[in-house]
């Protein structure tokens, strides 16, 4: 599942696995066991970008370099090499003229000049252009480029949060106003918009599913995505098909410099004046949306279980002066941090998980915290309870390797996504929900995540049910993390 998640997230992972293909060499006395496979990569071939099974050392050298290049060329994805035990262990002959080929990474594919010029024309001439981004930014430069393009056009941006793409407090960030900005847009550009369709339409998940477009029927669509270069048939990773007017099968981040240059070239004085008016209105709307988010957060402020908004606000008060990095998912947490915190650096958020499976968050957060460690960043995770139970030993891994990570439990005592779904199905059939809790809730007994963490050498407190106890507990845990160790605060929370 970890490989599948990396594939869906377009993350380059270099995987080398062992095998023992020659059955005549399988001798238990020497520890060579019979559990080998003819085609070891077959199990994951549907969700790696490339794999190979080298049969000579020179073959391995060339495939090793090739694999790295393939993985690092957008669309990035995992690669896998099978290293047979004979290849690993046999002596190298003095006659072997082995060499490692030169590695030169390929430049990412960019939109062609004609399409870029046409896209710029459409955006500049539009009355209400809109930019939709999802799995877009690969680097800080990607964020900066998007800010430059949006400011050049004074165009709103909807960030679907597949990655850290656009500053949350930027006045052109209109992610909380999706319906309004889509409905008024006459040109909409998707940048690595994994699910462009859902940005432009609504769907009601009732007995009979219905959908309706939000966008104008004559709105023009532009797409720049490497998704057009990489689609697999069996293990699928695509949403509904969106018909567009201009499609560039290209890496959006690599295409933006030329698009910005062309856009600036085409802007006239009159258009610039119109852009400024548009920008001022969008900035005011952004401020209103932020105030609305703060008002929404104030409800159930003193509730027990603790509201997710309260956890978010209390946590922010403690980490805002750190060089922080939020290394967890946010969907189950009502996206509060993205609504309330000022994100502007590429490492401040790890994005959504493409694979969608339970059990991703805990290992991913430990991995991201490990990556952050050498930069001295303060890693914080909002950790779902059900998710942690899929691989709780990552807590020991974090303790053993002294990985500084603050995990704040979103302990709603349920596989809540599933609980809601079971209830929805029960309601559809008017059969009540008196059995919806079976297999979906963690009651009788409840789980004590502080004790779980403590058993693996992690400093932990909780379960906290009184919101007023949260701040001091967070301060104590943060002190531990700043010493270079993991800590966990178990908070019993509202469902979402």
């Amino acid at each position: 599942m970890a490989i599948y998640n990396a594939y869906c997230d377009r993350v380059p992972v270099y995987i080398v696995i062992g095998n023992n293909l020659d059955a005549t060499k399988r001798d238990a006395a020497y520890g060579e066991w019979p559990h080998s496979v003819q085609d070891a990569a077959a199990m994951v071939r549907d969700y790696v970008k490339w794999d190979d099974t080298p049969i000579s050392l020179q073959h391995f050298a060339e495939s090793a370099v090739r694999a790295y290049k393939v993985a690092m060329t957008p669309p990035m994805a995992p690669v896998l090499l099978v290293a047979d035990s004979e290849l690993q262990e046999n002596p190298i002959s003095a006659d072997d003229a082995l060499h490692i080929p030169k590695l030169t990474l390929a430049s990412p594919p960019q939109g062609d000049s004609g399409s870029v010029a046409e896209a710029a024309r459409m955006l500049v001439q539009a009355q209400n252009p809109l930019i939709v981004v999802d799995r877009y930014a690969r680097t800080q430069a990607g964020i900066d480029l998007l800010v430059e393009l949006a400011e050049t056009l004074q165009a709103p941006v909807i960030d679907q949060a597949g990655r850290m793409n656009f500053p949350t407090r930027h006045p052109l960030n209109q992610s909380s106003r999706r319906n309004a900005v889509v409905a008024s847009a006459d040109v909409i550009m998707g940048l690595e918009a994994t699910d462009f369709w859902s940005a432009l339409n609504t769907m009601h998940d009732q007995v009979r599913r219905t959908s309706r477009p939000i966008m104008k029927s004559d709105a023009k669509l532009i797409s720049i995505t490497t998704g057009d270069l990489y689609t697999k048939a069996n293990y699928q990773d695509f949403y509904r098909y969106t018909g567009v007017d201009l499609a560039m099968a290209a890496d959006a981040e690599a295409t933006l410099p030329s698009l910005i240059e062309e856009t600036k070239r085409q802007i006239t004085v009159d258009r610039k004046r119109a852009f400024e008016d548009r920008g001022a209105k969008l900035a005011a709307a952004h401020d209103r949306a932020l105030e609305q988010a703060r008002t929404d957060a104030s409800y159930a402020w003193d509730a027990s279980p603790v509201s997710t908004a309260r956890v978010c606000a209390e946590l922010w008060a403690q980490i805002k002066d750190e060089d922080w990095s939020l290394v967890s998912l946010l969907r189950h947490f009502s996206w509060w941090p993205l609504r309330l915190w000022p994100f502007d650096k590429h490492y401040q958020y790890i994005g959504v998980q493409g694979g969608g499976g339970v059990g991703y968050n805990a290992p991913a957060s430990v991995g991201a915290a490990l990556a952050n460690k050498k930069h001295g960043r303060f890693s914080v995770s909002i950790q779902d309870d059900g998710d942690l139970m899929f691989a709780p030993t990552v807590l020991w891994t974090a303790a053993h390797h002294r990985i500084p990570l603050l995990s704040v439990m979103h302990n709603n005592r349920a596989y809540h996504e599933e609980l809601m779904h079971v209830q929805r199905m029960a309601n559809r059939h008017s059969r009540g929900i008196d059995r919806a809790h079976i297999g979906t809730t963690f009651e009788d007994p409840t789980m004590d995540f502080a004790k779980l963490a403590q058993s693996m050498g992690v400093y932990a407190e909780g379960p906290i049910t009184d919101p007023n106890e949260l701040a001091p507990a967070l301060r104590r845990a943060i002190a531990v993390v700043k010493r270079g160790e993991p800590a966990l605060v178990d908070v019993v929370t509202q469902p979402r």
Partner: protein
Amino acid sequence: MKSFRGCRFDAGAALAIALFFISLHVRSAIAAQESKPADAPAGNAENGKRIFTKNGCYECHGREGQGSNMTGPRIAPDPVPLDVLTRYVRKPTGEMPPYTDKVVSDQELADIYAFLQSRPHPPAAKNNPLLK
């Protein structure tokens, strides 16, 4: 198989639902002032809390009815009028599953309504130092 809908940040969609409710609330509140249904059953807030939990209303709307941009709008402490709420619960037009009277009776809805009305109003966000 459970749905992964909404795995992308989309505060706007839920906000639209919330605005629908707010709009509904304003229009209905005016109507309620003009003609409050005489046969509306009186509610028991304590029992309403129990039903709200037992029937899973809390799963999407929160245990205080505070709502979530991912699952369901805020419905407390100022719910729409009871007759409007009852009509919506029986035949929802949004994401909410329908609750027939086999699942929750009119009296139980009145109890839930009383519970929602009993929830405390929060202090103003502008006066909350943690929300600045």
